[in-house]
């Protein structure tokens, strides 16, 4: 890789102390994201993928290694990285509109501008008509759409997504994947998307990074060569099936190993 990476994770390690023992959650994780690339990070539960994302967001300190954003090391959280959580993190006391505006406060925008930008981003996720609704009035999928609008609104350099559709039902999840993909195809941004859903990883990303069992590092990198724009018809193509199979096989051998079945035949 000669071109400069947007994000570079070098030799990342994270240890936790648990009952007097040191548990290695991550060790030697190397990740590179090019500008405007959509990369998914996939692995079995407990492999450290969310920890890696959390460190990238600056919410946890790494034990070893470094993270570079545009060649500069990052320290702590910052507005250059936006995070979409798996849990619903809209503030219940604010309307959808006010939730998006909340994130814009630190941008030094005048109030009027904030309102317009928030409105435009709700439109982007198809929720303009719900601008004045409170989170209790929104379905799970709608809440995550507002959360995406909120994360995009303040223009972070990198969007970090931690299983954002993990709590949604299968049908809603598909709709959300299509929505996210079409937004990304129109308004490119560098994305690191954590998931444990193989189909999701293949559908949304340019590249899938499969993680090992803990201590987690990148086991395999699979280029998702499906053309864009993507649509759900592609799910039934042989190309999709082939990529799906490769990612699945890579994870499967890890989960078999962690379940004590060995690496498989």
């Amino acid at each position: 890789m000669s071109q400069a990476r947007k994000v570079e994770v070098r030799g990342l390690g994270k240890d936790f102390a648990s009952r007097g023992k040191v548990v290695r959650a991550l060790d030697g994780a190397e990740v590179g994201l090019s500008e405007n690339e959509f990369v998914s990070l996939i692995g079995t539960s407990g492999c450290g993928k969310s920890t890696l994302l959390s460190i990238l967001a600056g919410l946890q300190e790494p034990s070893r290694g470094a993270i570079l954003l545009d060649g500069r090391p990052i320290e702590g959280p910052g507005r250059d990285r936006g995070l979409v959580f798996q849990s619903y993190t809209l503030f219940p006391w604010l309307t959808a509109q006010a939730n998006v505006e909340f994130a814009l406060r630190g941008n030094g925008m005048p109030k009027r501008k904030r309102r317009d930008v928030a409105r435009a981003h709700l439109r982007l996720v198809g929720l303009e008509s719900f601008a004045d609704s409170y989170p209790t009035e929104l379905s799970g999928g709608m809440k995550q759409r507002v959360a995406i609008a909120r994360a995009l609104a303040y223009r972070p350099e990198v969007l970090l997504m931690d299983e954002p559709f993990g709590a949604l039902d299968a049908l809603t999840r598909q709709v959300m994947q299509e929505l996210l993909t079409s937004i990304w195809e129109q308004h490119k941004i560098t994305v690191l998307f954590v998931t444990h859903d193989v189909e999701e990883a293949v559908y949304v990303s340019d590249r899938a990074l499969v993680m090992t069992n803990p201590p987690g590092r990148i086991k395999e990198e699979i280029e998702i060569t499906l053309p864009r724009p993507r649509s759900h018809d592609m799910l039934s193509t042989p190309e999709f099936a082939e990529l799906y199979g490769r990612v699945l096989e890579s994870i499967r051998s890890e989960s078999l190993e962690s379940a004590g079945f060995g690496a498989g035949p």
Partner: protein
Amino acid sequence: MLRIGGSISTGWFLAIAGMVFAALLGLWFLATSSGWVQPLFLPSPSNVFNSLVDQARNGELWGDAKVSIYRIMVGFLVASAMAVPIGVLIGTYRFWEAAIEPLVDFIRYMPVVAFVPLTILWSGTGNMQKFLIIWIGTFFQQVLLIMDNTKRVPLDFVDFGRTLGMKDRAILARIIFPSAAPGIWDSMRISLGWAWTWLVLAELVAATSGLGYRITTAQRFFETDLIIGYILLLGALGLFFDQTMKFLGRRFFRYEAAGR
């Protein structure tokens, strides 16, 4: 109607609740009119009602209620004004929790009743002593309840604030506090109920005015009807304040019920 998770209409709910009150009132009426219980121990409902009416006519009832409500308000507001910031602080920072929570927990288990003689020694038998007893009885409980309300703020809310580059103080004021506010309001509502108990206790032991004071003097003159009337009045006042707090809470935190 009698099925786990079954629902009933508001009309039925009120009817059932009303019937229970009516049945008890009827029992009370029967027990006294049949001469089964002596009036000295349990006067008839009409006697109790009449004594309250007399008390209202000669103005004593309003004077007693006013004094007691004033004491409750001052004691409760001072306790709340102190407990909210301290509770939020110890629910947010482990340092402050370590410094304050064990101490508060320790004091909380000291019976409020045992402080009555001490507070009289410190501040006599005037209003200050009533404020003190109410404060001791509510403040320490409130602090712990509010700490719990604050701890229940999802950590992801705080983390989200961090990713926006917010400073701790802004996270506290604009994320943690608003998020915990409905729970804090509810804790205050519950502790207001206890404040009534501590007020009456203080007034029973040493006072020259107030609802509790009137109950002790009534006892000296065997005015059982007045005692029971005032006990019922205290119940009604407590219920009124509780419902008012509930109503205000629903107005302040309308968003909570928006989807329901």
